[in-house]
């Protein structure tokens, strides 16, 4: 099982790094936001995995909250970009 966690964790990390590449490259603000969005999704998944790894149910709450905040972040940025706020 541990090997499985390591492999999965490795893939997530790799995905995170690749997405981060787009974040730093841009070129437009929405591009960065997309990268950020992707990264936050990957992190949400990662958090759920951590709950499994540490066998702590309560960490799933963290993932849930994290996904809400990620969502709100993107929507806020989007509304701000179109001068909706």
């Amino acid at each position, binding site marked *: 099982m541990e090997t499985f966690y390591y492999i999965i964790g490795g893939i997530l990390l790799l995905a995170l790094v690749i997405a981060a590449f787009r974040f730093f490259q841009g070129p437009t603000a929405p591009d960065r936001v997309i990268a950020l969005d992707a990264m936050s999704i990957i992190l949400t998944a990662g958090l759920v995995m951590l709950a499994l790894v540490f066998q702590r149910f309560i*960490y799933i709450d963290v993932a849930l*909250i994290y996904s*809400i905040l990620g969502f709100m972040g993107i929507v806020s940025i989007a509304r701000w970009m179109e001068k*909706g706020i």
Partner: protein
Amino acid sequence: MKKLLATFLLGFIGFYLYTAFAGVPFGESKMKVGKDYLETTVPKTGAVNTVTSIVVNYRGFDTLGEVTVLFLAATGLGAILFGMKGKPEDKHREPSSILTTGAKALFPIIVLLGAYIFIHGHLTPGGGFQGGTIIATGVLMLILGIKKFHANHALLSIMESLAGITFVVAGILGLAFGKTFLENILPLGTPGQVFSAGVIPIIYVAVGFKVGAELAGVLDTMMSTTRGEE
């Protein structure tokens, strides 16, 4: 030149800060009071979440202050932006119907999640501040997604007042029962259950309401001064 100087100064300060922390071994236990909290939280406070027992019980006075800070920020913001009106809206600002519908559909779920989080503050990670923040997030979503959304400030104000009064009264009751301010006066119950940890969940629910109401109020005040009326 100025940049160079800034970099130099910051490097200098950074170096000293690092020096200060360099002697602190990372990842090793340096606990003194922390240890006591961890050992006494379940038997003495009935709270499973040590952070919560610290926040609401051991260092509840800090939290009362913290709640006050937020309350003051909301009050101050209202004072600073009092009477300010934004520019009239243009058509550009209208949210799409997808967002509007989505916001309406997600709002109760988010509020419920927030409530869940502050009700379980003594059991799971989270608590009044986190739950309140999530509720405010829900309100933010309404602000973003609904064109003419305005929070009901009178209601928010009553909510935050009542919640704040609850907190202080919970403290004063400790005095009234011949104990100290903010001291627990309720039975501790079975650790791990919803109705446990004495007064902690009550305070945290109050904090949740308060934080939610205040942050929502702050967001709405800010938005309405920037986006303005038609």
